[in-house]
């Protein structure tokens, strides 16, 4: 449902693509990108090289750990995936006369109100320089602040880090697309697997942070949806024991607090990764652990190699010198969404692409065996999730047998009849 008048703004650019795709033998495909004509730049702001599509990326690098941390978050988490995607976009762009650039903004540590203001300032600055695609690796409140600050400016915001269901519900925004699966999708994926395994009785352990409460909430909804029983729910009150050193005396009360519960599986809600990894093999009864640790549902994992994922894993490792993480993958998918839409529409005109992302004809191949699309009702990326333990892929959701009139992918997360999202114009 794009506006035809907008397309007319770039007639020459379209003409060029037409030439390439309709088969007049042209040698341009091998020429270096520098030989651009200025004709394609009709929609770009003055500060940007005419033919180039700039994609903004705002993130807050993790502070390096003070001492040894085997699993420290790399400083380039997320942005490294965006860099790879820009390369992929440019490679394809050689054949479509489209070029891309990543404009990265690394914010100072510390979110909160101050951080939110800095994120908004960075977003305004990028938009002022003509950027119309903005990828943000920020918490939910900052995603909203950025989206609202850019409202009406024709900027499409890709949320790659905030799984909050409210961003797909009551707080949804028309200018925001969510690449990261919502918490509801993550817990539905696990619940489907438990259903398949006939593990019905859940023991839910909830961490002290707000995000943990939200994860637990999502899991309870999933349990209702797939008829699992929450046999017990207890708060985790023993501190970040997973971060404690190995020679720290074992906290006996943490071990015994699982006593006397009748359950098939312990589900931990610990999004910060403070204590969830402490639970496996420390429960009184021998029970598997899942949730935010143990068996998890996610977008990417070093163990994923099917559907061409091995190629992406290799390409990423060669570029970044480390393994690809979920946030890297989500950043990659966001930037590739822009590139893929531009290839499919034969233009990078934001006025054409912004509404196109939500159309069913847009699809993103992203190493998941199926094309990914954005749900039109809340702009959430539909995607299979991998159910994985630290050393092996266990399953892929949606599981066999979970069907849906539209696509099995819509058995994960909030479906159209349940959505509370109403896009304000």
């Amino acid at each position, binding site marked *: 449902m794009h506006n035809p008048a907008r397309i007319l703004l770039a007639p020459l650019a379209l003409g060029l693509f037409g030439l390439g795709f309709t088969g007049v*033998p042209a040698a341009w495909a091998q020429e270096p990108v520098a030989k651009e004509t200025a004709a394609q730049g009709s929609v770009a702001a003055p500060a940007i090289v005419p033919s180039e599509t700039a994609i903004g990326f705002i993130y807050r690098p993790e502070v390096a750990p003070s001492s040894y941390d085997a699993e420290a978050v790399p400083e380039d988490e997320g942005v490294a995936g965006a860099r790879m995607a820009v390369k992929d976009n440019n*490679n394809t762009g*050689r*054949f479509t006369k489209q070029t891309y650039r990543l404009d990265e903004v690394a914010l100072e540590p510390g979110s909160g109100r101050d951080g939110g203001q800095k994120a908004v300032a960075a977003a305004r600055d990028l938009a002022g320089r003509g950027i119309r695609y903005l990828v943000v690796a920020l918490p939910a409140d900052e995603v909203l602040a950025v989206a609202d600050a850019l409202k009406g400016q024709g900027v499409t915001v890709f949320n790659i880090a905030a799984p909050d269901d409210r961003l797909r519900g009551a707080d949804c925004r028309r200018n925001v697309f969510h690449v990261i699966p919502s918490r509801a999708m993550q817990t539905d994926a696990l619940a489907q697997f438990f259903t398949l395994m006939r593990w019905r009785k859940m023991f839910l352990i909830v961490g002290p942070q707000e995000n943990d409460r939200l994860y637990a909430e999502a899991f309870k909804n999933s349990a209702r949806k797939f008829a699992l029983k929450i046999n017990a729910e207890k708060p985790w009150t023993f501190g970040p024991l997973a971060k404690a050193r190995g020679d720290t005396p074992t906290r006996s009360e943490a071990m015994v607090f699982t006593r006397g519960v009748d359950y098939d599986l312990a589900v931990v809600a610990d999004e910060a990764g403070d204590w969830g990894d402490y639970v496996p093999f420390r429960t009184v009864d021998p029970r598997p652990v899942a949730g935010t640790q143990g068996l998890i549902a996610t977008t990417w994992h070093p163990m994923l190699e099917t559907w*061409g994922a091995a190629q992406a894993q290799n390409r990423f490792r060669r570029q970044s010198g480390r393994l690809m993480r979920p946030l890297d993958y989500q950043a990659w998918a966001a930037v590739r969404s822009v590139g893929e839409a531009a290839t499919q529409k034969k233009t990078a005109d934001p006025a054409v692409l912004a509404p196109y992302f939500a159309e069913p004809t847009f699809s993103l*191949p992203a190493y998941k065996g199926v*094309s990914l699309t954005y749900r039109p009702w809340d702009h959430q990326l539909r995607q299979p999730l991998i159910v994985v333990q630290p050393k092996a892929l266990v399953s892929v959701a949606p599981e066999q047998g979970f069907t849906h009139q539209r696509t099995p992918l819509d058995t994960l997360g909030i479906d159209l009849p349940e959505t509370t999202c109403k896009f304000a114009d």
Partner: protein
Amino acid sequence: MSRGFRAGAPGTVLGLALLAGPSLAGLSLAGVSPAQAYTVYVTNEKGNSVSVIDTETMAVTGTWKVGRRPRGVTTSKDGKELFVCASDDDRIDVLDTSTGKVVRSLRSGPDPEQFILGPQGNLLYVANEDDSQVTVIDVEKNKVLAEVPVGVEPEGMGLSPDGKILVNTSETTNMAHFIDTTTFAVIDNVLVDARPRFAEFTADGKYLWVSAEVGGTISVIDVAARRVIKKITFKIPSVNDEAIQPVGIRITKDGTKAFVALGPANRIAVIDAKTYAVEKYLPVGQRVWQLAFTPDQKLLFSTNGSSNDISVVDVAAEKVVKSIPVGLLPWGVAVSPN
């Protein structure tokens, strides 16, 4: 059906032909007759080996060690050499088919995945999956003649029957790149559906078929106009649309019939190559990817990655007649020319 095969030593192909009906029987008697046996080579991606199958006995006669992650495979024109992409070793292994030993390796560029041999048998066109390029190698001299930049994750390689146009498909760029084999320049690009895996010219050189694994379609491209003229889609009762992932394509020399491997749908589609109507689906092993005919086109072999076997299809009867266990994660398949 498979019992007939196992029982017979010589004469099994004939026996099968008789089962299939008079038309094929006549053909078989006139042309191939009982003794025409071929050798089938299957690369085992996780087994780092090639399984060797005799079409007369339909049994594995050998397992040859090759480099790591063997995928694309083809034979020399005279059948004396076998070329195998050893993707993780960044080279192409050349095996002596009389001994099963690697006699030399070709400098293929990084991560060779698929390749196609030129009509003279001296040039090998290689898709370097991790490196977004096509490498052209002189087989005798082991020399790189050209490196052609293409899209992200190049894979499918098709060559026009006259050898003048090479087509490479790039899985993440989603294009068929047309390359002039005299200048090694990309002359055109045709956008197809998501994740194009394989490119196959019709024998008359007029059409190019390209499979899209994630898109779930076959694009038929008019080679002269370089335009998609038909998109073939698939629908299988009781199989999710998402599981229908076309990969390997083979079209009979007479241009009447096409076979398409449908990945995790565990089926091969049989298509009328003139009308593009999908006629039937043949159930094969799990995650079927690559296909190869015998030179007489009486049999078709498919690699079934997840079930670690290959399926044998009687082309005229359009029936699966046997499955043969091979190594771990079979990927590519080639049949000896004689």
